[in-house]
């Protein structure tokens, strides 16, 4: 089978498969809006766990193809279509984001793409605010969080649609903080067969923005790659690949800080978190394999549309409609 045919098949089949899975979920038919009801037969728990695993698996594939983190799609969709309370979905969402970052970390660090010195000051600020965000999120009424989540998801979809990206941004002079902290690096870029040297600027503004991003990530239990990457790449001037990889490293520290707030509140159920984490991770591996065979631009548009739908649904749930 030629690559073009494979491309067509995968592009044609994945979105309907994924959307079909969503609409097969009984929650859509019977309990679409808030409040959630207990599952009719608790002994059928394994059906939900299995569905969550299968859903997370497809989510893992789609998120790699669309170039977004699993966490940002996981929370709005699962909280809208599964019978789990938003608290548990956010708890699981943080671990989905965290595990992805942990498993990809070692190889990205060895290649010089994920940079520890760049990530440490940002994650220090971000982990403090992500703890604050997690506390605020668990203190607020569930419908308020659901409403804010919906608004946040639509805003993120708009950011993803509008924000550009720059492979190798030009940084003339690093700022004082970047110079003092010695934040710079190099990595081998196979597409141009060269070692790329990079440095950053505008670190103070970056630190302020990472504080805000950490708060939102902790509050909604989402990964924050959608915001980390544009800030690192477009504002601070890190090359795109360094921005994406370092964002994961920041997330592994911020997510861990916020995760403990959820762990202490009893908002992490292994029955939900483990199938979600393993499904997304397995799906991501498959997604990475077929990445070169599909039209990622089309998938990205479909994902943005799905995010808008999930966001609207979340807003409706928050408003009790």
């Amino acid at each position, binding site marked *: 089978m030629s690559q073009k045919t494979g491309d067509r098949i995968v592009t044609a089949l994945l979105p309907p498969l994924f959307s079909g899975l969503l609409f097969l979920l009984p929650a859509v038919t019977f309990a679409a809006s808030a409040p959630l009801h207990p*599952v009719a037969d608790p002994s059928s728990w394994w059906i939900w766990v299995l569905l969550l695993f299968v859903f997370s698996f497809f989510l893992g594939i789609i998120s790699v193809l669309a170039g977004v983190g699993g966490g940002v799609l996981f929370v709005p969709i699962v909280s809208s279509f599964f*019978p789990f309370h938003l608290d548990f979905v956010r708890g699981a969402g943080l671990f989905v984001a965290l595990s992805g970052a942990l498993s990809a970390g070692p190889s990205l*660090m060895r290649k010089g793409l994920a940079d*520890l010195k760049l990530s*440490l000051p940002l994650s220090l600020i971000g*982990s403090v605010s992500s703890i604050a965000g997690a506390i605020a999120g668990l203190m607020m009424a569930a419908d308020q969080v659901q409403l804010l989540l919906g608004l946040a998801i639509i805003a993120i979809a708009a950011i993803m649609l509008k924000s550009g990206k720059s492979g190798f941004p030009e940084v003339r002079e690093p700022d004082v903080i970047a110079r003092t902290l010695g934040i710079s690096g190099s990595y081998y870029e196979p597409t141009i067969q060269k070692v790329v040297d990079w440095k950053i600027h505008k670190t103070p503004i970056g630190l302020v923005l990472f504080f805000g991003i950490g708060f939102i990530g902790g509050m909604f239990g989402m990964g924050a790659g959608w915001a980390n990457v544009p800030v690192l790449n477009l504002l601070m001037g890190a090359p795109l690949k360094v921005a994406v990889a370092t964002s994961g490293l920041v997330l592994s520290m911020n997510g861990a800080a916020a995760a403990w707030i959820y*762990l*202490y509140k009893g908002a992490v*159920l292994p029955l939900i978190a483990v199938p979600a984490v393993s499904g997304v991770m397995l799906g991501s591996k498959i997604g990475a394999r077929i990445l070169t065979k599909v039209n990622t631009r089309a998938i990205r548009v479909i994902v943005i549309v799905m995010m808008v739908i999930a966001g609207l649904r979340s807003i409706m749930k928050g408003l009790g409609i």
Partner: protein
Amino acid sequence: MSSEIQKETRIDRVQLVYASVLDIVSHTGMVLVAAGFIAYVFRLFTPTVSIEEVAAHWHMRASEMQKVVHVPKGWSWVSDPLHGDVLSFVSIVFLSMAAMICLTSALAVFFQEKNRIYTIITFLQITVLAAAVAGIAGGAG
């Protein structure tokens, strides 16, 4: 990557140490997560709360659910860990501590290299995470 490219690419020793520790920790974490979950759902160890009970209450807020069933949370499981749900929970706890373990190795390297600024930043980062782990940062209670 060829050795020539490796020479040209500047990667700090601390970063390579962090990556090696992360590699071990993340793989161990994944194995523990799988093993813990198998022990839980196949009931190899009796859970503290039955799976059916959890499924009957997972539509409730976490705080409301805790009033009805006491699923493992924080460090509540330490005194009695040999239960299926606890083992699965512990594996998740391990994942959440991965960054702290790696940061401790980075702290040692920064300290050896007498890199004062990063020793302080890393120490502060570990302190923030330790505060969250200990429940001081607002998690407990």
